[in-house]
């Protein structure tokens, strides 16, 4: 069996979408099987920044295998990425992690294609991986997106979803408020929820889904080191049984980043 290793990708695009959020397209030269919700490790050229930066995959081009990434500038490493020029090469590893479960959804869709209603809820830089998910999911998709001031990817979602609603906390786009305010605006009763975004938002989505007995899948974010499940720094708490004390740590990078919404324990 051929062993996996760090590969080089050529940068085809690296542009600011907002002052802090960038879009990067990587030419990988090969098609790898990618599940929505997975991420890749991107490596800094400056060796003093040792650790890879895990960046979620926003879209995969079916024909070329190219990755579209959306990343936020959060520190020196992501700042370095913004300085990379077109045609420059960057090291990456992946796709990594366990993504959303399309299979069960597809099976469910086959059984009940007309009525499957899916609610996709994204916040901030949690929004990008939901685009590839929206592309691949069948059924009737409604998308709720929340941002601080400026939205991203709204037009892309409109191409693949039945409905797209936007909320911004400043009120500059869509309604003034959060995705939870969008949820309250009308009576949603989806068959399945998928969500990715900040912890506070995911916790609210989890509670909302639980109260209505709707299955959910949540994609989490945590500081990582290796990205391949070895170092145990990016753990999250998950339920292991009916009692308070029945919990365990799972690895966000390997067992996740996508978890069954029923299992995740937010602190």
């Amino acid at each position, binding site marked *: *069996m051929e062993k996996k290793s760090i590969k080089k990708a050529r940068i085809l695009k690296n542009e600011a979408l907002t002052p802090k959020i960038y879009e990067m397209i990587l030419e990988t030269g090969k098609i790898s099987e990618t599940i929505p919700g997975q991420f890749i490790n991107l490596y800094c050229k400056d060796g*003093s920044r040792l650790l*890879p930066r895990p960046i979620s995959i926003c879209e995969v081009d079916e024909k070329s295998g190219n990755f579209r990434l959306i990343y936020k500038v959060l520190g020196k490493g992501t700042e370095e990425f913004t300085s990379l020029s077109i045609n420059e090469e960057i090291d990456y*590893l992946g796709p990594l992690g366990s993504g959303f479960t399309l299979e069960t959804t597809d099976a469910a869709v086959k059984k009940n294609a007309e009525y499957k209603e899916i609610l996709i809820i994204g916040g901030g830089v949690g929004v990008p991986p939901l685009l590839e998910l929206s592309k691949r999911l069948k059924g009737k998709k409604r998308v709720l997106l929340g941002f601080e001031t400026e939205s991203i990817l709204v037009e892309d979602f409109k191409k693949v979803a039945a409905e797209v609603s936007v909320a911004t906390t400043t009120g500059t786009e869509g309604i003034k408020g959060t995705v939870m305010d969008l949820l309250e605006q009308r009576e949603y009763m989806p068959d399945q929820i998928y969500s990715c975004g900040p912890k506070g938002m995911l916790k609210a989505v989890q509670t909302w889904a639980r109260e209505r007995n709707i299955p959910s899948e949540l994609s989490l974010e*945590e500081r990582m080191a290796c990205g391949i499940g*070895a170092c145990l720094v990016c753990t999250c708490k998950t339920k292991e049984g009916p009692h308070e004390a029945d919990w365990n740590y799972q690895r966000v990078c390997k067992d996740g980043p996508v978890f069954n919404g029923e299992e995740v324990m937010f602190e």
Partner: protein
Amino acid sequence: MRNGGKRPDMAVKISGVELKNPVMPASGTFGSGKEFDEYLDLNRLGMVVTKGVADVPWKGNSTPRVAETYGGMLNSVGLQNPGIHHFIREDILFLEGYDTKIMVNIAGRSIEEYVRVVRALQNQPVDFLELNISCPNIKEGGVAFGTDVDMAYQVTKKVKEAAKQPLIVKLSPNVTDIVAVAKACEAAGADGISLINTLLGMKMDIKTRRPVLANTFGGLSGPAIKPVALRMVYQLAKEINIPIIGIGGIATWEDALEFILAGATAVQVGTANFRNPRAMIEIIEGLESYLKEENIDGIEELIGAGHESKEENPC
């Protein structure tokens, strides 16, 4: 031409056990190898060193457990592990399928806890034990044993009495006199010393104005600590008569060679595995090429070679 184009001998011996080469992962950076199986051939490693295991499951510390620093990283995992019985069922069974040696890293909060783990391993197909008395991330035990000469002696002695396999004691750099601690372990019967574990450190988040790590302090690893580690290996090499396994910021074959020249019989690669899952393979190949180019028959010739006829200058 001494070796006439033959493949150089990469094997080294520790306590009578031959390793096919001197390169192995540092405990806690490699799980038990399963996660790396898709990135490298475990059969090529001199040894696999497993993540620290205690007598019962430990959940570890809260997150964030990691922070990057200049040329290094801090971790405060806190020895999360599934306990020795689960470990034997899953991890040893997995590793048995490979043609490499196995060293199990042992964690504990008390001498009794360490001894329980060692007893459970007595009849297991394990080649070495590595006694972790240097983890800075747990409150009781751990590093408390590694920073006190008498306690280091006591725990090494008790564990050695229960051990069926050669015992390597992994030491902390967070001490005033590393030589005294190592000598105590040697006197208590240790078969080897591995060092260094991480250096205690911290990082502040200037936005939240709070420590980044949930545990406040964590262990610093990576290239940033290499000079300190190398100095300690060099210091010990002159003072003790048991083999030393060098650890600390090794990311390239050149780094590994520096440790061997300083007196290490073998080396452990830690944080570098996080940046490049194939780092150890590249180090093994690099060392082998070096021996070939330099016409050196075997790597053992280089162990401690950096000490020869060097004048001491204790400024």
